[in-house]
């Protein structure tokens, strides 16, 4: 059942919102025992919200139903997004027990629209990972095969979107953390244009890259949540002061004449055959619906995307994580020694291995003597990359590639990867993130009982086109 249909049932009194929420929470607990999708299930908040809505329904409060876009719909939240009074850790031990005093902008909007917050989903620590294995808490398991990864870093959000009905998820992407897990779990994941959704209340990984976005089993549900969270926010100085569109109007809109560029370098060597075959099926589907597809060569994104992304992301992360020092909030130790000794102790005891690795990588990339060759160089290549994409969008409405070059791997296979090999898995998704372009994972097939995803990329603020194309694939079958 789509969220829209569900809301109608609530409005017509066919579903008791409190009973339904109790049931959903119970279901979440059961799923969690087996799959580890939650760091925290926010039972108390969810039931309070449900009772509050029920009260208003019973009192027949005038106009309460009008314009409540998410009335009673269960919304899960990636653990890096702050929810007032609910433990928010971003997957890190250094934030264990941290209960924010405020709601993130996206959460405020969800609550205003009557959405029910069911919990905080599992992720890599601060988003540092591709498989959701770098966490101080539970590691989410793929809904198709428990020996495999959900992808990351929004792994819990993606797995839950596949497994739990009548639910939409809020994820976050820095370098592919919405689309990669969406691909590995067979759901839609929309990463918006940089600045389209406020980052206020998001525990940041890399300021110039982080984006909050919706994930859901259907394009409809993801578009609905996008409509709720998009818009300008004065509390985020990088929030775009451009009116948000009605994204739902792009659903089921004909795609005749839309021009698609097939990124040449993203196919062939290094891409698993089953993945390639299914992505081409997706492209054929779009062509059958009237889109025109043609090959385009984009050299920079595939060849230099990983290096550019990791240098910028690690540099920004290393400065961002400086705030976690055992003062004001989060993990603390006995106040002993000098400033430096104290901060070092708290940080060394509470950051995970990958967090330490990225802090060191980023600190190095920004250090005198190395900054020009690494951080600044990457920022310049970023300019060239944006230009290359912009040129492509003069000719095409959207670009297409696989979302991941591989099928969801087994945990035992991931263990064997070096950090660099691990980073390389992000090859398809890092570049649209570096360029701040909206991108969407569209499930296009099942191979060996595992899902395959197609990545669609559009120009800045063209989320609508992505939704239009995603919807065409979804309903074309």
């Amino acid at each position, binding site marked *: 059942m789509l969220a829209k249909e569900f809301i109608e049932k609530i409005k017509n009194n066919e579903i008791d919102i409190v009973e339904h929420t109790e049931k959903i929470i119970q279901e979440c607990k059961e799923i969690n025992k087996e799959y580890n999708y939650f760091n925290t299930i926010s039972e108390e908040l969810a039931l309070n919200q449900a009772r509050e809505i029920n009260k208003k329904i019973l009192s027949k409060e005038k106009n309460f139903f009008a314009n409540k876009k998410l009335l009673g719909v269960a919304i899960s939240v990636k653990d890096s997004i702050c929810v007032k009074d609910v433990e928010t850790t971003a997957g890190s031990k250094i934030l264990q027990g941290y209960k924010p*005093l*405020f709601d993130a902008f996206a959460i405020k909007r969800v609550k205003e629209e009557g959405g029910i917050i069911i919990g905080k989903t599992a992720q890599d620590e601060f988003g540092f990972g591709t498989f959701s294995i770098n966490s101080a808490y539970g590691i989410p398991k793929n809904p198709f095969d428990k020996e495999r990864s959900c992808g990351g870093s929004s792994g819990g959000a993606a797995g839950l979107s596949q497994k739990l009905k009548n639910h939409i998820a809020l994820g976050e992407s820095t370098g592919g953390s919405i689309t990669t897990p969406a691909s590995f779990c067979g759901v839609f994941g929309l990463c918006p*244009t*940089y600045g389209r959704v406020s980052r206020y209340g998001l525990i940041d990984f890399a300021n*110039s890259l982080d984006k909050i976005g919706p994930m859901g089993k259907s394009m409809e549900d993801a578009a609905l949540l996008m409509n709720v969270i998009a818009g300008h926010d*004065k509390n985020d*100085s*990088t*929030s775009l002061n451009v009116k948000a569109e009605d994204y739902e109007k792009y659903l089921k809109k004909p795609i005749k004449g839309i021009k698609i560029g097939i990124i040449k370098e993203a196919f062939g060597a290094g891409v698993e055959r089953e993945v390639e075959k299914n992505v081409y099926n997706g492209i054929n589907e779009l062509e059958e619906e009237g889109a025109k597809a043609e090959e385009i060569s984009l050299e*920079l994104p595939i060849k*230099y995307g*990983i*290096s*550019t992304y*990791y240098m910028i992301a690690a540099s920004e992360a*290393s400065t961002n994580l400086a705030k976690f020092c*055992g*003062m*004001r*909030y*989060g993990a*603390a130790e006995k*106040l002993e*020694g*000098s*400033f*430096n*000794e*104290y901060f*070092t*102790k708290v*940080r*060394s005891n509470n*950051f995970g*291995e990958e967090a*330490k*690795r990225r*802090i*060191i990588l980023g*600190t*190095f990339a920004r*250090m005198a003597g190395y900054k020009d*060759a*690494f951080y*600044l*160089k*990457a*920022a*310049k*290549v*970023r*300019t*060239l990359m*944006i230009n290359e994409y912009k040129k492509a969008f003069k000719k095409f409405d959207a670009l297409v590639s696989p979302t991941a070059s591989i099928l969801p791997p087994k945990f035992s296979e991931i263990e064997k990867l*070096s*950090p*660099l090999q691990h*980073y390389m898995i992000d090859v398809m998704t890092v570049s649209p993130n570096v360029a*701040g372009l909206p991108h969407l994972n569209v499930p296009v097939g099942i191979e060996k009982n595992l899902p395959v995803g197609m990545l669609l990329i559009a120009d*800045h603020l063209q989320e609508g086109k992505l939704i239009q194309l995603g919807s065409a694939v979804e309903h074309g079958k």
Partner: protein
Amino acid sequence: MEVDRKLLEHVAEVARVKLSEEEIKKFLPQLKDALEFFSKLKEVNTDDVKPSFHPVEIRNSVREDAEEECLSQDEALSLTEHKKNGYFKGPRAV
């Protein structure tokens, strides 16, 4: 570029992270490996190219210089044990 143990320990110190012996042994080859790969960026000609610190053009966003609602002092202090007389308490500075 020589990435050795001395450099790694120095960077860790700057980043206020103390690495264990085991971590040093593990991280050193990984860091070398990654930086060598990232050095590929030098192949790209960036003469006369300006760096992008954001993916989209961001104009300075300023607000009225006026008082706004914010967390109370008690709220701000509520998430830590380390406080004294309405202030955060930190480790000694010297």
